[in-house]
């Protein structure tokens, strides 16, 4: 399987108080056609920055190093026309807050058909037919009426369905979903994730799901990467992250989430608060919160190593693997 999307040693620096500070610190990740990959992290981990870097919409003045390749073509080498084609036919993005990413003064119908008509040269009648079919597919009731409605007339869940329909309408190769269901009720979340999952399998889509929820990533994605302070701490099959974590941060993250299945056990807590790459100390950025940290962890920055079919950026993985495994287990 060759990768549709390849992120290679991606570095993004932003000007902070006149100085360039790194917000993404060498992130590498690939997604193949038909594959679902999750990126899990807390605030400041750089997961959304990574998503923005992929579609090349970074804040003004940012510096980018490394590469983002879409079907072997570097997104940062594309000229205006190529980039526009990439964004309108290659990749589609779904955001957490649909209301912030949809034009409030255009109707749903205009919004859905715009790219099809202006970029892909589809005839308006055909675009309308296609969009109606997609709205039905994402379980939007009364689709014909919806085309004439405006964003403010739709609930958050309904609007997110419209966003998903819009993403599917351009028949992209990659869908980039940044916390698509975080603001929604669990029932809507379940349904929307199910729709995305079905479409991914039917159309051989690559899905990059950005989320804070390890359980959700395990349910929907084959592989998960855990980010912290602008870098990937661990990457592996989603199952292995729960059952056999390689990195202390992953184990601690899994153990600090209350489980619906067990009760009574006190939550184990990661002391302190998540850091962004900008605040990270030298050496491993997780050291201040890590209970396994030793002097060597502060000395130099650990590079991701292959362990057990996955990657871990921890120099102690092999020494502490058994302890990590027991951390995530219910008492």
């Amino acid at each position, binding site marked *: 399987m060759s990768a549709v999307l390849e992120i290679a040693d991606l570095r993004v620096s932003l000007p902070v108080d006149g100085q360039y500070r790194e917000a993404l610190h060498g992130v590498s990740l690939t997604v193949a056609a038909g594959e679902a990959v999750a990126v899990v992290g807390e605030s400041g981990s750089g997961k959304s920055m990574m998503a923005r870097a992929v579609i090349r919409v970074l804040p003004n003045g940012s510096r980018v190093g490394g590469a983002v390749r879409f079907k072997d073509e570097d997104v940062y080498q594309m000229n205006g026309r190529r980039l526009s084609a990439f964004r309108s036919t290659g990749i589609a993005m779904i955001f957490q807050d649909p209301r912030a990413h949809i034009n409030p003064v255009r109707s749903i119908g205009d919004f859905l058909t715009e790219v099809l008509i202006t970029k892909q040269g589809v005839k308006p009648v055909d675009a309308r037919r296609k969009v109606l079919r997609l709205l039905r597919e994402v379980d939007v009731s009364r689709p014909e009426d919806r085309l004439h409605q405006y964003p403010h007339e739709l609930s958050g869940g309904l609007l997110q369905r419209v966003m998903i329909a819009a993403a599917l309408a351009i028949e992209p190769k990659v869908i980039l979903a940044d916390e698509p269901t975080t603001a929604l009720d669990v029932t809507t979340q379940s349904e*929307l994730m199910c729709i995305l999952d079905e479409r991914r399998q039917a159309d051989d889509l690559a899905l990059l799901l950005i989320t804070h929820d390890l359980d959700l990533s395990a*349910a929907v994605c084959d592989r998960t990467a855990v980010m912290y302070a602008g870098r990937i701490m661990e990457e592996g099959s989603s199952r292995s992250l729960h059952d056999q974590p390689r990195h202390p941060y992953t184990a601690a993250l899994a153990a600090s989430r*209350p489980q*619906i299945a067990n009760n009574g056990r006190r939550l184990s807590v990661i002391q302190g608060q998540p850091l962004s790459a900008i605040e990270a100390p030298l050496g491993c950025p997780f050291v201040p919160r890590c209970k396994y940290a030793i002097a060597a962890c502060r000395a130099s920055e650990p590079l991701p190593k292959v362990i057990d079919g996955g990657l871990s950026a921890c120099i102690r993985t092999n020494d502490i693997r058994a302890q990590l495994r027991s951390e995530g287990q219910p008492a």
Partner: protein
Amino acid sequence: MNENPVVVADSLRKVYRVRGRIGRSGRNAGLTAVDGVSLTLSEGESLGVIGESGSGKTTLALMIIGLQTPSAGRVEVCGNERGRKRQRGKRHVWGREVQIVFQDPYSSLDPRQRVNSAIEEVLKLHFELSAGERRKRTATILEQVGLDQGRGGQRPAALSGGERQRAAIARAIAVEPRILILDEAVSALDVSIQAQILNLLADLRKSTGMAYLFLSHDLSVVRYITDRIIVMHNGRIVEEGTTDQVLSAPQQTYTQVLLACVPRRGWKPQRVRQLTEAS
């Protein structure tokens, strides 16, 4: 558990007046947010109210704390019935009894007021203390919620999300209320911070004996923090029982569907329609 009730709500109903039309029918029909809800919160108990957006849980909380007047029904807090009209003197008493923590501490704290001063203001309103005593009490409260003394001198903007929520909790518990309402109080926090605040809330309940009314859409969190659960849907209670009963063996279809949608190990997303047909 103590059987002494601190909150009794009887057939509460709230109809919001809505301008224009709702949906395709009904002129001036109003929107019924809460429709005949009765509940009892015992002293020291932690009662969870779960439901999706629009289920009426926040309106219910606002009626109990007195920020909304019920359209029908009555609320009794610590043995006193809440009147329909504004009663200045009584508001003061209620403030001692019930406090609330909201989801977003950034919009519920005054951005220009330092944390210390927010807590001292509450103490000044409710207790006869000298300035020195107030400062000392404030320091103790900050310690109780796990905030460094240094952070007390900060404004909310200088605090992290977790610290802000600790500050909001500190302000709420300063009057030593008997009831603390937590409206999605941990929903916006990062996973690792959420665990810290949940443990803090569990400890505070143990040390102070406060009763919690815990509103949330997150069933895993509710499982961790509550003794009993009320499930709300469209303004009504559809199911209630001990947390264990409701989450291990839900009786109502709605609760079953809700529970089936919670991501957990081995879970796969499903269409809700399939779920309702199956059950």
